[in-house]
């Protein structure tokens, strides 16, 4: 049977992708940020998954106001990096895993989560920046991402966005879906976005280091309580775009210590944890959690 062995959490700031694409990672501004991912890149090589289930949000790229799916799963064979207005990022095409994605779609819908199924979409920085951070700089033509990726897009652009509670429950359904897949494969689930940031208005540039780190503690150690944090707390404390953090709860809910909405058994191992301010407008958070037998 397929198994989820680890979850990865990271911000997906577009400027990080630009810094990598323009080879600026060793500049004074960026060096401390990328240093926080040195461990992670090696860990990815040493613990290469067969598939990454990557939870992210589309930033009005694949989904304009024409359609706003709350939860959308990509079941395509491949996804092109999107042109978000500055030209497409020079990174490899993202290969999908249609068989596992379709299996998860069917299983999760049968567990009462009404997913939108997407067979054609481009993927924006929300998906490609986490891949770049974890896999390093890759040639768009000669290289490939280390494994297939299932994109899972969550609406956090137009309110109301799904609650932390709903995301946490969805993670549990995704784990059940993965574990009912017959092939013996190793799956990582990633939650991306956040941490505190606000890109608009007189409050633009808000960062809340203390709240971010307390939230990260809670997400790791008491995810049941973390899932109960209401939207307004994210907005008030972590900025209007800090709400992206609810997506991390999908990955956390898929870990082995969460069963029937409660936590039981040993906590996952915290393999790595990192926090840095700033990347452009944003506080960057990152963690790797592993299920240990």
């Amino acid at each position, binding site marked *: 049977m397929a198994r989820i062995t680890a979850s990865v959490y990271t911000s997906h700031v577009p400027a990080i992708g630009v810094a990598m694409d323009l080879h600026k990672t060793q500049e004074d501004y960026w060096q401390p940020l990328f240093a926080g991912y040195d461990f992670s890149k090696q860990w990815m090589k040493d613990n290469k998954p067969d598939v990454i289930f990557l939870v992210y949000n589309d930033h*009005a790229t694949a989904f304009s106001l024409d359609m706003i799916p709350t939860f959308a799963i990509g079941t395509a064979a491949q996804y092109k990096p999107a042109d978000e*207005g500055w030209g497409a990022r020079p990174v490899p095409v993202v290969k999908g895993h249609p068989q596992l994605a379709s299996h998860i779609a069917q299983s999760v819908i049968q567990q009462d989560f009404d997913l939108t199924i997407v067979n054609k979409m481009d993927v924006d920085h929300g998906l490609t920046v986490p891949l770049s951070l974890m896999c390093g700089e890759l040639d768009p033509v000669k290289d490939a991402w280390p494994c297939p990726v299932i994109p899972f897009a969550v609406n956090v652009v137009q309110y109301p966005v799904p609650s932390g509670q709903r995301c946490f429950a969805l993670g549990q359904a995704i784990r059940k879906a993965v574990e009912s897949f017959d092939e013996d494969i190793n799956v990582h689930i990633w939650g991306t976005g956040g941490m505190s940031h606000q890109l608009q208005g007189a409050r*633009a540039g808000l960062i809340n280091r203390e709240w971010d780190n307390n939230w990260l503690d809670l997400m790791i150690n008491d995810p049941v309580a973390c899932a109960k944090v209401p939207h307004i707390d994210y907005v008030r404390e972590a900025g209007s775009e800090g709400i992206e953090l609810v997506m991390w709860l999908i990955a956390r809910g898929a870990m082995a210590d969460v069963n029937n909405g409660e936590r039981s058994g040993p906590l996952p191992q915290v393999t790595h944890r990192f926090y840095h301010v700033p990347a452009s407008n944003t506080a960057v958070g990152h963690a790797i959690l592993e299920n240990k037998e």
Partner: protein
Amino acid sequence: MALDKPYKDVPGTIIFDAEQSRLGYWLNQFCTSLMKAENRARFLADERAYLDEWAMTEEQKQAVMARDLNRCMALGGNIYFLARIGATDGKSFQQMAGSMTGMSEEEYRNMMLAGGRSVEGNRYIGEDGDAQPHRQPQGAGSKKEGN
């Protein structure tokens, strides 16, 4: 019964909910059109003519031409859509976000390097933080207006 909108009392913040989305539908769809290179070129060649192709309000068109992102937000724009205007102008997210505060690019960048804007005094309208209405615009913008 009215919907619960607890986010109305956060200073300097407009939450893009269904009501804002309805107001800004054509403004945001216009922004989406700028993801195509040929549309970016047509817009830059004659902004007024290009905007007139969209069912936007006159106020929205004026806000776009003035690159007044705060006004665009108030009229239903969303930052991820408005970012297409910034991309068309060759601006980064940091330049766009900073432009909404009144600070110069350098002031805003320095604020971020120093750890960002504090949440203290900026949680609820009526406190005294730097994002409160009575303290706008900030930085260089406040000097320009002789405040």
